[in-house]
């Protein structure tokens, strides 16, 4: 598809910004996103081309405004839902629960 991921030759993104002594992962959530994506892939229910295709479905403006592992997260959710492993309501419910837990911790501190 003619998506935002097809970046070759585009203008306007500014200089390349290498980070000195960059760590492999910048946040704990990146580690987890990486690991659950690979582990889910090993279930053998989709192939790497389907993985890439899923990430490419991210709306263009969102793709350009988000980071690499956010693209992975989007793609993984899409595949898991498509293949029937997880329902969108389940994800939202679990997110809401974790948000409540976090608010509870913040109130205590």
């Amino acid at each position, binding site marked *: 598809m003619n998506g935002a991921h097809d970046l070759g030759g585009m203008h306007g993104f500014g200089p390349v910004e290498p980070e000195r002594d960059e760590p492999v992962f910048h946040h704990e959530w990146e580690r987890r996103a990486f*690991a659950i994506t690979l582990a889910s892939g090993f279930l053998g229910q989709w192939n790497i081309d389907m993985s890439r295709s899923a990430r490419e479905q991210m709306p263009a403006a969102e793709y350009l405004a988000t980071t690499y592992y956010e693209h992975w997260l989007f793609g993984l959710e899409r595949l898991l839902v498509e293949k029937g492993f997880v329902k969108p309501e389940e994800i939202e419910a679990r997110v809401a629960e974790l948000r409540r837990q976090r608010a509870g911790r913040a109130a205590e501190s």
Partner: protein
Amino acid sequence: MSGHDHPHDHDHDHEDGSRFSEVELRVRALESLLVDKGLVDPTALDALIDTYETKIGPRNGARVVARAWVDPGYKRRLLEKGGAAIAELGYEGRQGEDIVVLENTPTVHNVVVCTLCSCYPWPVLGLPPVWYKAAPYRSRAVIDPRGVLREFGTELPDGVEVRVWDSTAELRYLVLPERPAGTEGMSEEELAGLVTRDSMIGVSRVAAPAVP
């Protein structure tokens, strides 16, 4: 596309309401669901992270390069069938099942990109840096390669041909950088210590050792 948003402490839990705090919730939610459903095993998650964070990285590729610099037979094998030669040193696997090695010479300078995503030879270089996966490099490497190289401090004379390899298929490309002058007496291990990840992507050259 933002390459890096958090110049300060990298490991703290994003409870401060930043954009990543929502992402973090979502990742944790998804992980817990997958574990609860028995679809992923937490020990596998830990092993995957440990492998790519600590065990596989550009030191692998540096050893391949150093071997090629000292052993002409190995270099020949490396350029003919990259994957097999790399496997001789024990490096093989995911995102490196088919590796092609590109030799930089005084007249040809190779540089590798994946404009469509982030394809990169994991077994020899580990996971790619953020800049390689981000829009500035992916967009400009194919339209202004000399400008991109200049940003990395790499200035190439006009007589050199620049070849940019866009990794659109499952081939993975590794650049064999030129051996710098002044390294004649060095051991293979010392040579490997000079080779940077960026030189194996092709955005930099290997610097001659500093004169003490």
